[in-house]
């Protein structure tokens, strides 16, 4: 839709504008724009500027180290990496998902529901709620969780406590809130004790109630700002994610479903072990993040979005009652089969948060968590593929090992990578529709940030996420001379320097 703005046909005489979060703590991404003499946007790109090299340096390590090594990709969704790696190494010891012991399967699911719950709460309350509660163009001094805690103490404290609860689920199952250990090849290393179970049960009804309130809050905010919330940064795309065999929403294990913008099925219940027949990744010179696409549709048409919006759009229903009711309302909001609004990511994210809370309650009442067989064994294999729905979308881990159990090849497609094209398109939509031809202003900056933030991007699946993009905007002429510079100060003032 806005692909023509990826590369300007003629770069001569264009002004370069960089929206560079260099000073942002997690700032490993930036946006560059090329403008013509009328400030019309000719090119807009979101660059991911960090590179780590995991796929190479884990080669040479024994496979059983993988779940604890690769979770260090991301301190925000470490459990998702831990479990994707665990699912892959299950196969290396000859254990297919259906042969995982029931108790281990349920413990892993509990662990992952805790992960998704805490990550979604973090993104909504600690990161995005200031924009949504105070307005996209509110005073910068207001745009942080501390200000939310001061002005909306109920909402702020509930957000902090929901995230805490998710972290406590993780701690009970894996021993630590960040980078614990729980999954091992073929199963889990411990069951839940009765005390741990009772500790988690004590608060779950309160958490569910707060989750219901959060869905009501986001629905109110979304609907109070129409048609803006439906148009802003919105693009029509394909959607991809895992679903259960009966088409229900799934976060831990399932087949791949992809739908097109009109809601038509591209593929369904596709075996993720054959992901390389479904998607490939294109490299572009100007960013470290690759561009995955569906092979059947080709590079131009085959890009897709993942994450909460994709999952809630794609599934036939949600198997917990409160979240399912919320999903029906969500779908009814759109006249089309699919909800394309980029800001609706927030709404879908909170529906999933509610689903996680309900699912945790269900699991905690399940005696299988308290004991039983925890590890299965099988015949050694040389290749393993694990796929999971991480908070931000479908996450692929693929490993090969040699006869000494040493990793010889690794391929990781992290969730945010699958949203690369979507984020770039949203940035270009905002650039084309909201700021082309206008003078550089602070609202312009925050509009770009809000568009990117809706995706909850984990730039380099790690360093992004909590927080905003404090920005500095520089306008440089074709010869490299600085023409104009805007800086946001700590007190919220914007200065032209």
């Amino acid at each position: 839709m806005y692909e023509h703005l990826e590369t300007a046909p003629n770069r001569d005489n264009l002004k370069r504008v960089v929206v560079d979060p260099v000073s942002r703590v997690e700032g490993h991404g930036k946006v560059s724009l090329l403008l013509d003499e009328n400030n019309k946007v000719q090119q807009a790109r979101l660059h991911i500027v960090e590179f780590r090299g995991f796929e190479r340096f884990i080669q040479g390590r024994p496979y059983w180290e993988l779940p604890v090594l690769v979770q260090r990709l991301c301190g925000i969704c470490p459990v998702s990496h831990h479990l994707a790696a665990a699912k892959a190494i299950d196969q290396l010891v000859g254990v297919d998902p259906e042969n995982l012991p029931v108790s281990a399967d349920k413990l892993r699911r509990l662990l992952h529901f805790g992960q998704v719950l805490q990550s979604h709460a973090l993104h909504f309350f600690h990161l995005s709620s200031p924009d949504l509660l105070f307005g996209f163009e509110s005073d910068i001094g207001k745009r942080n969780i501390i200000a939310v805690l001061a002005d909306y103490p109920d909402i702020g404290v509930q957000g902090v406590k929901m995230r805490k609860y998710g972290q406590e689920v993780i701690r009970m199952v894996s021993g630590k809130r960040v980078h614990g250990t729980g999954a091992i090849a073929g199963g889990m290393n411990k069951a839940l004790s009765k005390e741990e179970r009772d500790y988690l049960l004590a608060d779950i009804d309160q958490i569910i109630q707060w989750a219901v309130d959060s869905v009501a809050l986001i629905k109110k905010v979304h609907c109070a700002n129409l048609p803006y919330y439906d148009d802003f940064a919105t693009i029509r795309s394909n959607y991809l994610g895992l679903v259960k065999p009966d088409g229900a929403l799934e976060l831990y294990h399932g087949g791949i479903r992809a739908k097109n913008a009109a809601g038509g099925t591209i593929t369904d219940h596709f075996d993720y072990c054959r992901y390389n027949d479904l998607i490939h990744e294109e490299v572009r010179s100007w960013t470290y993040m690759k561009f995955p696409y569906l092979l059947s549709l080709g590079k131009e048409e085959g890009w897709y979005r993942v994450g909460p919006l994709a999952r809630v759009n794609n599934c036939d229903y949600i198997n917990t009652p409160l979240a399912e009711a919320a999903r029906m309302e969500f779908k009814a909001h759109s006249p089309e089969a699919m909800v394309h609004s980029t800001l609706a990511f927030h709404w879908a994210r909170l529906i999933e948060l509610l689903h996680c809370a309900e699912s945790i309650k269900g699991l905690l009442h399940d005696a299988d968590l308290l004991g039983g067989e925890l590890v299965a064994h099988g015949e050694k294999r040389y290749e393993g593929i694990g796929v999971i729905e991480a908070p931000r979308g479908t996450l692929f881990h693929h490993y090969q090992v040699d006869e000494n159990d040493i990793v010889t090849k690794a391929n990781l497609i992290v969730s945010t990578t699958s949203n690369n094209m979507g984020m770039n398109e949203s940035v270009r939509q905002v650039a084309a529709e909201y700021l082309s031809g206008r003078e550089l202003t602070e609202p312009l900056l925050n509009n770009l940030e809000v568009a990117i933030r809706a995706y909850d991007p984990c730039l380099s699946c790690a360093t992004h996420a909590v927080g905003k993009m404090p920005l500095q905007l520089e306008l440089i002429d074709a010869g490299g001379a600085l023409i104009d510079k805007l800086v946001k100060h700590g007190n919220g003032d914007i200065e032209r320097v």
Partner: protein
Amino acid sequence: MANKIRVATTSLAGCFGCHMSFLDLDERLVALAELVEFDRSPITDIEHASNCDIGLIEGGVCNSENVHTLREFRKNCKILVAVGACAINGGLPAMRNFIPLEECLNEAYLDGIGVENPQIPSDVELPLLLDKVRPIHEVVKIDYYLPGCPPSADVFWKFLTDLLEGREPELDYELVHYD
């Protein structure tokens, strides 16, 4: 509260887990907000650290941008703290130090599974990578080290409250982990 302590935080080549652990202060964040003021940090929009009492650094140094940020922090923070394994000794990202950088790039962009249009990203917009991932004390002087991967929320709490109350920070034995 008359004089709040100004605290800035940043993540260089880290996974953000140390910041997550800081947020694990949970309700104590509300109490902390009474005592400290956050300067540049993931939880604020402030762009440059200025005139800070304490700077908390997560992650080692892996590219030119990290070096720049770290120097800016040293200049603007009275007390600079290396938080977590990555900042202290490079941590897990430093596993790439045993492999030529070119091989790491080749694996991701040329020889990977399902890679189309193979090429090494090389745009002027991308900061230069360092050949090795470095601990931050190799670049600037560090005043305190908080070990752990990540250090627990209790470590942050003990460290900050000690400083706020004018004590020399000291971590009890059970708070020190090298995981």
